[in-house]
């Protein structure tokens, strides 16, 4: 795939996977040593409890940290797992293991139900629903008191047994540890899989995700179910720790605990939630043990941690180090400012380098990009919009005449010009299915696709870039590009979850390929750094690349050259021409007249939602109507 050798980098990939698992292994060893060496039963019990919370928090990390979904009801799902398992062993005398499995299943089903609600409502409302669920736990246990014991609680007398051995405190400690480590490995694999990258996209720009051809609802559903399954696992083990289950175990404090653990530990990091639990649960419980003031201390610890570690412990440490370095350079070593600054610059370069970045060979880049596409896609035909009309709440955005046509044909570059508010972006949004037209039609290769979703259209071969691109800022350009590439491989989730050789290899190839493309597009200085550090020009280039790294035959670019330097513009223009020469159909919205007319085969000029002119660049340039519309007078 991608014309690179399959064998290359396989060893390195395995080594990388081992390295990534290193932190999990180290955590396992430290905790296991503690479990073996301590003789205090209360430490074992609290430790096991903390680990069940850590499992749930790790699951919440997927939903909250990666996907940005406010699953405030995680502790209610945890309770469902706990009560299901406890009911089966205590009331129905099941053995622990099948009961535990059923607890996880029940929790996952709860996640599925929650996801149906979550598909429809957003952030705060969703947070409220979760919060409400937690609030209802005492009422619900009352209603189902024959299963749950109601407010009086449920005794869970039987201990799980493992090959004939009853798991007492130390046994349960290790059971919780094994479950935690397995959960971390699973989550690690999910994070590296296409799903994990899609989750991050969903957080910052769900619309982008849809225009990549990903079904957003499936990503959301997978997020909830995975997150809930882990909460259920934590709950199932929790139910057998203290021998007694009370509705009060799952209250505001535990809700806050899980949420705060994810935020404090570092929302987007793998081990963050576990670190957060250590900080917010283990430390207050074991280190500061003042009875009677526990709520006050706990509230204060949460508050102070969130304020101090608002970006997570990991960012706190990293930025602290950076600040310390700055201070040392400026104050302690008394280096003249100018020189000190340049040492900083060498480490954080990429600012001035972009202006002189040169695409070595535009044709080579175009070949690589076109190599992603197979013939069936490129032969699909033109994207055509006819007689488009659209109004938003009474404000008319597009009023084209019924026979006015804008067509994006394979092998041609169509440029859309027009003053602000003339309807260019509206037209582009209608073309890629972001919303439906009031009247008029959109068709792909002759088939009418009115009302077809952005996701479906992306799968029919239409992709786009955005006017103000947004990325999951913690990821690097290479990671984002390779995430998009890897999605195309259509490996089943089993491969990704187990992170087997096929998955590792796919990831490795995609990373190599992504790095090559990024370097060729002039991003090499920035390609392995988080996107938060990109300049506006680099963001623009990355967004255009993301639209190109697909199987699409038609690519729509919303102001691709805005904010680029003259040199970058020239290179972008060359790339667009080279792609068109290889059969791609492109539409570009532009403001810069010279640039637009240089790259275009065909130009449409919009003004006040109408088609003002249409034709070859030289015809449009000569049109006096167009001159007044673009240079002076109209539109303001």
């Amino acid at each position, binding site marked *: 795939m991608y014309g690179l050798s399959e064998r290359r980098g396989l060893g390195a990939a395995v080594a990388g996977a081992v390295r990534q698992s290193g932190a999990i292994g180290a955590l396992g060893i430290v905790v296991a040593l503690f479990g073996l060496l301590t003789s205090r039963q209360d430490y074992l019990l609290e430790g096991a409890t903390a680990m069940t919370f850590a499992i749930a928090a790790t699951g919440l990390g997927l939903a*909250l940290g990666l996907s940005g979904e*406010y699953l405030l009801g995680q502790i209610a799902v945890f309770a469902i797992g706990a009560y299901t398992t406890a009911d089966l062993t205590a009331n129905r005398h099941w053995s622990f293991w099948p009961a535990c499995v059923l607890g996880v299943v029940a929790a996952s089903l709860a996640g599925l139900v929650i996801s149906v*609600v979550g*598909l*429809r*409502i*957003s*952030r*705060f*409302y969703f*947070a*409220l*629903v979760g*919060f*409400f*669920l937690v*609030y*209802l736990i005492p*009422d*619900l246990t*009352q*209603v189902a008191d024959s299963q749950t014991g109601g407010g009086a609680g449920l005794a869970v007398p039987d201990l799980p047994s493992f090959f004939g051995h009853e798991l007492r405190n130390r046994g349960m400690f290790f059971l919780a540890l094994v479950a935690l480590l397995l959960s971390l490995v699973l989550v690690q694999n999910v994070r590296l899989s296409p799903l994990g990258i899609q989750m991050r996209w969903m957080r910052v720009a*769900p*619309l982008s*995700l*849809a225009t990549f051809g990903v079904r*957003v609802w499936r990503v959301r559903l997978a997020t909830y179910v995975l997150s809930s399954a882990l909460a259920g696992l934590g709950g199932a083990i929790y139910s057998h720790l203290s021998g007694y289950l009370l509705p009060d175990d799952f*209250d*505001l*404090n535990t*809700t*806050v605990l899980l*949420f*705060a653990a994810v*935020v*404090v530990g570092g*929302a987007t990091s793998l081990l963050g939630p576990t670190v957060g639990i250590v900080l917010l649960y283990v430390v207050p419980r074991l280190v500061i043990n003042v009875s*009677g*003031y*526990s*709520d*006050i*201390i*706990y*509230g*204060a610890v*949460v*508050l102070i941690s*969130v*304020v101090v570690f*608002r*970006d997570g412990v990991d960012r706190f440490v990293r930025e602290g180090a950076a600040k310390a370095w700055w201070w040392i350079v400026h104050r302690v070593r008394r280096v003249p400012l100018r020189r000190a600054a340049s040492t900083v610059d060498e480490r954080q370069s990429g600012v001035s380098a972009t202006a002189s970045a040169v695409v070595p060979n535009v044709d080579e880049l175009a070949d690589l990009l076109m190599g992603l596409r197979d013939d069936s896609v490129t032969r699909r035909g033109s994207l055509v919009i006819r007689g488009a009309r659209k109004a938003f709440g009474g404000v008319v955005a597009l009023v084209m005449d019924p026979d006015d046509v804008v067509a994006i044909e394979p092998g041609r570059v169509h440029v859309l010009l027009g003053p602000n508010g003339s309807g260019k972006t509206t037209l582009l949004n209608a073309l890629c299915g972001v919303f439906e037209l009031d009247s008029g039609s959109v068709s792909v290769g002759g088939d009418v696709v009115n009302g077809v979703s*952005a*996701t479906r259209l992306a799968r029919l071969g239409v992709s786009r870039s955005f006017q103000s691109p947004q990325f999951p800022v913690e990821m690097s350009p290479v990671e984002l590009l390779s995430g998009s590439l890897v999605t195309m491989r259509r490996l089943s989730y089993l491969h990704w979850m187990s992170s087997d050789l096929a998955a590792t290899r796919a990831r490795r190839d995609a990373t190599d390929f992504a790095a090559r493309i990024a370097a060729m597009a002039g991003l090499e200085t920035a390609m392995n750094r988080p996107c938060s550090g990109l300049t506006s020009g680099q963001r623009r280039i990355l967004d255009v690349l993301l639209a190109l790294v697909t199987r699409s035959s038609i690519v729509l670019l919303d102001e691709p050259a805005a904010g680029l330097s003259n040199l970058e513009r020239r290179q972008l223009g060359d790339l667009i021409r080279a792609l068109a020469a290889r059969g791609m159909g492109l539409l570009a919205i532009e403001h810069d007249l010279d640039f637009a007319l240089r790259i275009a085969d065909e130009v449409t000029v919009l003004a006040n939602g109408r088609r003002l002119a249409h034709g070859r660049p030289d015809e449009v340039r000569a049109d006096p109507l167009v001159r007044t519309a673009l240079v002076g007078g109209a539109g303001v």
Partner: protein
Amino acid sequence: MELGGAVVSGIAIGSVYALIALGFSFIYRTTGSFNFAQGQIVTFGSLISYSLYVSAGVPALAAIVIVAIAAGALGAIVERVAIWPLASRGDDTLTWLISTLGVAVLITGFAERVWGTIPLGVPNYVGPNVIHLGGQINLATPYLIGIGSVLVAAAAIEVSQRFTIWGKAMRATADNRQAVALAGVNVIRLGVVSFAIGGALAGIAGFVLAPITFADSTAGMSFAVLAFAALAIGGFASHWGAIFGGWLVGITESIGGTYAGLQYQDIFVFGVLIVILLIRPEGLTGSRNVRLV
């Protein structure tokens, strides 16, 4: 007539939820954030009312003023400790969600420490305990105070936000905080003011509630959840949405409690909330807030 009675007492208790919801929506519309400790400020208001009115014998009228000031101060403190230290981060809702919840835990712990966990009874502030509305429908006077205060509060907020420059500035802050600062206004001070006003509203709600539900240091979360539900049902678009939502929550609770039993009343509210959010995610009076994809 049981139904009529349930509806009337539902509207009455709903008015108190609406009062709390008004505080929520006021803070939200001004600062773009929610104060999740709002429910705890309500209990704080109730407990102070107990201390003033029952223990110290302060007249009701003086007590309500002191409660409003104290709760307003607590709201301002919440802003100082849970919002202000995070303000430099700009638009990140997640952290203050947690930090205000942390404060909620802290206030609960503090209240339990000072007033204990046993609910404290507060006698009615004025006049006869019950007013007969005809038939068998009766209304306790404290409820009447609740209905009155929520209407007055909503009208006052509405007028100030439409017609005064500071009210407009508060709406503007909800839109674009940085731009208000760039117009030369100290938005941090504006945020403290709105938290104080929200806190005062919650405190007044606590004062009104004390004779109805007793002053209960552990009840904070239920007020927060139900008022938040009222807001979601009514929609954020206007203050009338909060009132309407509060009444609906109150009526649902009271009918559910009357006919199905107390443990079902909030499950009913939850059901209504889910159904309404599924049909109209933006709430009954709100502008669109539905997910695009």
